């Protein structure tokens, strides 16, 4: 469903050229739960941005749901993000002035659904994440775990092709992290593809498959060494 071939991303300043990704190739199939790990600076955030169409790549090909995304303009990319990708951020990124209902509503508004359709979807996903009883709460009135659930609901509301999660439990304590991971596993069991970027090996193991990124490339080395290098 998601096919990246030899993706390269180069950042150029006046003095320095940084290769964040080089010859990065990855294929994710329908319904998979893939974790992407790597030390900081390895390029996994860049991968995330490119996969999420948040940034453009310098060379290579990226096919999303059978469609080559090169040459798309900003509006087309925005629409693609809106329809096909569900984001889950490390710091939840909820809008503090909006209540739970309105927060989940944000991407649906950009989709152009009418108000009945939006309400139907929001009620459904809030139930899925177990927050159906708190539509009027403000983010400041929720715990970290609850906030992340709202974010997950927001990601699911548009029925995306895959969820793109960036350190989804990074800002949560171990209990909440557990319950969020359980939720993600459940969502994946229902058939939603999930790509999760994380630096926690224990979380990475909850996924079906792991991609390890090192120096901007997929690392095909020994898993043991990989593990050791990671925790060092």
């Amino acid at each position, binding site marked *: 469903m998601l096919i990246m071939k030899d993706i390269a991303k180069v950042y150029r300043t006046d003095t320095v050229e940084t290769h964040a990704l080089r010859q990065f190739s990855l294929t994710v199939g329908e319904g998979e739960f893939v974790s992407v790990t790597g030390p900081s600076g390895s390029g996994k*955030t860049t991968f*995330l*941005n490119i996969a*999420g*169409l*948040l*940034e453009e790549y310098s060379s290579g090909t990226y096919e999303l749901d059978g469609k080559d995304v090169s040459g798309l303009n*900003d*509006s087309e990319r*925005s*629409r693609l*993000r*809106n*329809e096909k990708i569900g*984001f889950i*951020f*490390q*710091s939840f*990124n909820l*809008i503090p*002035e*909006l*209540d739970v209902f*309105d927060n989940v*509503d*944000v*991407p649906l*508004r*950009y*989709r152009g659904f009418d108000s009945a359709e939006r309400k139907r979807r929001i009620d459904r996903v809030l139930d899925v994440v177990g927050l159906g009883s708190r539509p009027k709460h*403000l983010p400041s009135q929720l715990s970290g775990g609850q906030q992340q659930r709202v974010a997950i609901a*927001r990601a699911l509301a*548009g029925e995306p092709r895959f969820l793109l999660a*960036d350190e989804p439990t990074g800002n949560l304590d171990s209990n909440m992290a557990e319950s969020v991971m359980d939720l993600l596993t459940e969502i994946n069991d229902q058939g939603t593809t999930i790509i999760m970027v994380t630096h926690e090996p224990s979380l990475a193991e909850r996924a079906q498959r792991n991609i390890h990124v090192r120096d901007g490339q997929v690392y095909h080395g020994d898993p043991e060494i990989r593990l050791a290098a990671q925790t060092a």
Partner: protein
Amino acid sequence: MELGPIWRALMRNKASYVLIALQIAVTMAIMVNAVGIIQERSQQMARPSGVDEENIFYLSSNIFDPDADFEAQIEADLDAIRSFPGVHNAVMSNTVPLQGGGWSEGITLEPDPDLDSTGVAIYFSDEHGIDTFGVNLIAGRNFSANEVNWHDYESDAWPPIAIVTRAMAEELFPDLSVDQTLGKTVYIHDTKPVTIIGITERMQAAWNSWSGVERSMLVPVKRGGAYARYVIRAEPGYRDEIMPQIEEMLASMTDNRIIRGMETMQQTRQESYLLDSSMVKLLLFIVTVLTAITGLGIAGLASFSVARRTKQIGTRRALGATRPAILRHFMLENFVITSVGVAGGAILAVAINMWMVNAFGLQRMAWYLVPVAMAALWLVGQVAVYGPARRATMVSPALATRSV
């Protein structure tokens, strides 16, 4: 669009938006009232005086020899002026419209001292008056030369005929048409009859703020004495040239008098309305500066608001908002704030206007100024927010994944 969430979000973070709304409200109140006053004054100033303002000038002759033959001097002066090249006509009169100083009398319909009288401004004149002032005779006739008499300053006689303005005729005889008032007799000084032989379209009195400014009366009297004011109408284009020449000529005719107070009708109008025209300019300046300050204030606060919310903007973009959608969001948000502001402003404007009408006797403002001001402020708000809103659209969606 997203009116609901925008409104709810504003309600939760009232402080800075209330400030903008308040600013807009007060600005609107000032704007509406200032423009109301500007309108009122401009209308006042636009009123024509009825005389040929472009070509008329006047001056005073002050004879200080108490034994001089005043009448002969005045006759000689008028002859000399009328035959001067470039002069169309001239007349001796007590004042001109808008001069600020003049003569008024009370006119009654019956010779009864107990009746309320109607105030009228008096212009002493002769058969040259109508042509000199350039007023439009719409009914009846002018004075003939033998109907004009000399009075000295002590005299309390009044001529039996007069030419009044249309407004005077209508005030005296509201039920008659203008032509029907010709030949009617009214009374001055309670018992002295005056017959209306002519009606002019318009000839304003000397006091521009008098409620009866349109009521004046030409009477066929030449007042003989030490002070004489000559009103002179030049041929088109000659006025400036002949003014000093006439002054010089009159001064050199005899030694026992001084010529002073020479002014054009245009200068007189300017002086007459100086307070009003200055007020208009001042208010225009204030409204302009005020709009600029409010606009800059909105732009500044919007700019700050955008800078504070870059992460939110990035997140929205990540969630699928296009650049135009972000622009619309901020423009709409500003529109909502401005709407609250102008709603409050409308109420404030009307309240202040009512207070000013009571406290200072100003005119009530025209109702349409309120919606016009609302539209203007909506426009100012949208223009002011456009820059910051455009900057908001350039926020990269990748900001959403940045950890700080």
